Structures are given as structure tokens and as C-alpha cells.
């Protein structure tokens, strides 16, 4: 066995560029996903059936179909539907990842909200607060706290899944790896390095999440 890491060393900046795009895609996707997820989780628990059904259809669609199909749908399908020539790869990638993440985050928030004892909502309502006030000041702060660990997992999953947008040639880490491997004919060294870069990123995120858990759980205020 004859490994030649020095051959791909000069391509490291290219891979780091890719890693940077991976981080950007993931951060955007999770940010969009969190906003959508919060909104959809609130619709999902609505007593008004058409609203909660619509939310459920969204969630089921994005969780129940492959992300790869969703990426193709946005990159190739949506421009056709709207009669456009094409859509930017970045735009399609971020939208697909963001909507996919939104479905998972919606479920995280929904179960977070439902884990809060219903006496909390009742106590708030009995003081004359409206439903949105009770949600905002009483239920959601507690639900958010219990959602931090699964949100961290979602962040990590999204970072790894973002490698799928390489199929629409977005030059993120995976796609950069393929380019390098093709140029130097050293797939093993290249993809080991790519894997290590992913590992560094996921480990950093999980460290950060444990830190958040410590900060928010300093003295556990839950009853």
C-alpha cells in the first residue's frame, strides 16, 4: 500500500473552499428550517383541522421522500413549472435543504411543545393571557429548551445531507472532493481527507450543542 497524501496537499485550499460552502448551505438551511419549523409546528397543533392537515402534509412529504428527489424537484422541476430557463444551483440547494430541514424541525418543536404539561397553558390562560401570549411567554421558552439536543442532531444530519447537493454540481465539500479525486487519481486519500473535514465540522457542532445545553440547563428549572 502506497499512500501519497502530499499529492492532494496542494488541493487542500480547494477542499476548504468546499467546506466553507457546506457550512454556509447548512447554516442557511437550518436557519430557514427553524423559522419554517416553528411556524409549521404551531399550525400542526392547531385545533382547526384544515390547518393542521396542511401542516401534516408538508411534514410528511419532506420527511417521507428522499432528499435527493427533492433537490432534483427544485433544481429541474420548479423552473419547468414556472417557465424559467433555470434556477441558480445555490438557490435550489438552499431551498431544498431548508424546506427539508423545516419538516424535521417542525416535528422537533411539536414534540417539545407537547412535552410541556398542559397545566402550564391553563395557568397562563387563567390569568387572562391570550393563546399567542401564553405560547410565547410560557410554553415556547420551555419547549425550546427541551428541543436543543434534537435540534443539534438535526444540524449535524443537515450538514451531512448537504453533501447530496453535489448532484447539482454545487461546489461544496463533497463536490470539491470529487473534482480533486478526478484530477489526481487518488480517491482514497482525497475522500479520507473529505471525511475528516466533515468529522471536524460535526464534532464542532456537537461540542457547541453540549455547551448550549450546559448554559440553558445550568440549574434545571423544569419541574
Amino acid at each position, binding site marked *: 500500500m502506497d499512500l501519497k497524501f502530499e499529492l492532494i496537499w496542494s488541493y487542500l485550499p480547494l477542499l476548504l473552499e468546499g467546506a466553507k460552502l457546506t457550512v454556509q448551505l447548512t447554516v442557511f438551511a437550518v436557519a430557514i428550517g427553524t423559522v419554517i419549523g416553528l411556524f409549521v409546528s404551531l399550525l400542526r397543533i392547531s385545533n382547526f383541522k384544515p390547518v393542521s392537515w396542511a401542516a401534516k402534509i408538508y411534514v410528511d412529504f419532506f420527511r417521507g421522500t428522499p432528499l435527493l428527489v427533492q433537490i432534483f424537484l427544485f433544481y429541474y422541476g420548479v423552473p419547468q413549472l414556472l417557465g424559467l430557463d433555470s434556477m441558480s444551483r445555490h438557490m435550489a440547494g438552499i431551498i431544498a435543504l431548508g424546506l427539508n430541514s423545516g419538516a424535521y424541525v417542525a416535528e422537533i418543536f411539536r414534540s417539545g411543545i407537547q412535552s410541556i*404539561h398542559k*397545566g*402550564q397553558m*391553563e*395557568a*397562563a*390562560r*387563567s*390569568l*387572562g*393571557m*391570550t393563546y399567542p*401570549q401564553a405560547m410565547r*411567554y*410560557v410554553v415556547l*421558552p*420551555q419547549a425550546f*429548551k427541551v428541543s436543543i439536543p434534537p435540534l443539534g442532531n438535526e444540524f449535524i444530519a443537515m450538514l451531512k445531507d448537504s453533501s447530496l447537493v453535489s448532484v447539482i454540481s454545487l461546489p461544496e465539500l463533497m463536490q470539491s472532493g470529487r473534482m480533486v479525486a478526478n484530477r489526481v487519481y487518488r480517491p482514497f486519500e482525497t475522500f479520507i481527507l473529505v471525511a475528516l473535514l466533515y468529522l471536524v465540522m460535526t464534532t464542532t457542532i456537537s461540542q457547541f450543542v453540549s455547551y448550549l445545553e450546559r448554559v440553558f440547563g445550568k*440549574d*434545571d*428549572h*423544569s*419541574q
Partner: protein
Amino acid sequence: MITVNNLTKNFGSLQVLRGVSCQIAPKEVVVVIGPSGSGKSTFLRCLNQLETATSGEIIINGTKITDPKTNINLVRQEVGMVFQRFNLFPHMTALENVALAPMKVRKQTRAEAEELAMSLLKRVGLQDKAHQYPEKLSGGQQQRVAIARALAMRPKIMLFDEPTSALDPEMVGEVLEVIKSLAFEGMTMVVVSHEMGFAREVGDRVFFMDEGLILEEGTPEEIFNNPQNPRTKAFLSKIL
């Protein structure tokens, strides 16, 4: 002050309230007793519409609260409720628990709300616990914070659902003292409680509920010393 006419409440096919009617006068203290599952909590929860009535009407201070057009949030500002399991907000200190509704509902400034909250915590004997989180408080202390929290909305009526039954025996007294002091100040109250000493001392009337109806009502003397209904007798002989 409170008029209830033929109130019924169904949970699915289960009829929990089967036509409750009563009148409660201003400053009156009504103690509700009855076996488990007889509908006491459901009755109380209908009075601030935490449960929506299936039929019948409830009129509080001239407002028909069972009318869907009534703004229930306004009604609830006048009707405080204290729960068996306290239901304090665990992510807020005692002071924040009490100050939250005055700030968000009454739109008081933080300073005003916290001053009010502090004076109410003082009143229930807990000013030194103002900055503690609920988990650091004993059950009796938590329940007193919960009472202060309800009082912060300056309600005209207070509802208590077995406020001492989740407490260790040595903490029952401190909570009952606070409730008594409210009674002596003239607060209109409906209290579900099996504390007979308390009922005799502060209750103006006792309602005995069974199977979704008020089967018997009267002064504490009448109900405890000379119950008429056989079911009341049977119930009292079990708990006295």
C-alpha cells in the same frame, strides 16, 4: 355575582355535569365537596371556561360567559384560579411568575409589575424567596406564589381546586392561612376542598356534589352536622 343555570358538560359520551344550577353572592365563600370523579374540578373549570360548557349558562358580574361572543380573556382577568399542582412557570423566578400577567395582559411597566409582585409576595410571606425558581421552593411555598400570581390580576373572584391536597401535611396550614385571609377581606371564592376545619371556619355555604349534580347545599353546620341526603351522609362518614 355568579349565576349558573342548568350547566352540563360532556366529555364524549360521558356526561360529567348533569344540570348544575347555583347562585353565588359577592363576598361569599363556597366550599365544594364530593367524591372523586363527581365533577368538582370540571364545575370549577367551567367557571373560567377552561372547559367549555356543553349546555346551560354561566353569568359572572352580568356577563354571560358561556356566550361564544364574550371575550373570555377579559373575564379571566377578573376570575383568578389556583390549581392543585400549582402550575408555576418553572423557567421564571417567583417574582417573574407573579409579574408576568400584569406586564403582558395589563400592560404595566416592568417596574410597576415587579413592585406589585413584590408586595403580593410579601403578603403571602415570601418576599425573601422572590428571586428563587419554583423548583427551589417547597410545595407550600409554591402554592403561595401561585396564589400571589392569581391575585396580581386583581381578580374579583378566586377559584381554588384542592389547593392543599398535593401538599405534605405540615404545609397545609400556611396555605390555608393565606386563603382565609382573603376570605376575611371579602374576596368571593369557590374552593374545592375536603379540609373540614377550613370549611367550617370560612365557608358561608357548602355544596355537596355527586355524579355531576349539586345534591345538597347549606351552611357548614347544616351539611356537616345534619346532612339530609343519604349520599351526603355516606360521603361524610367516609372522610370525617
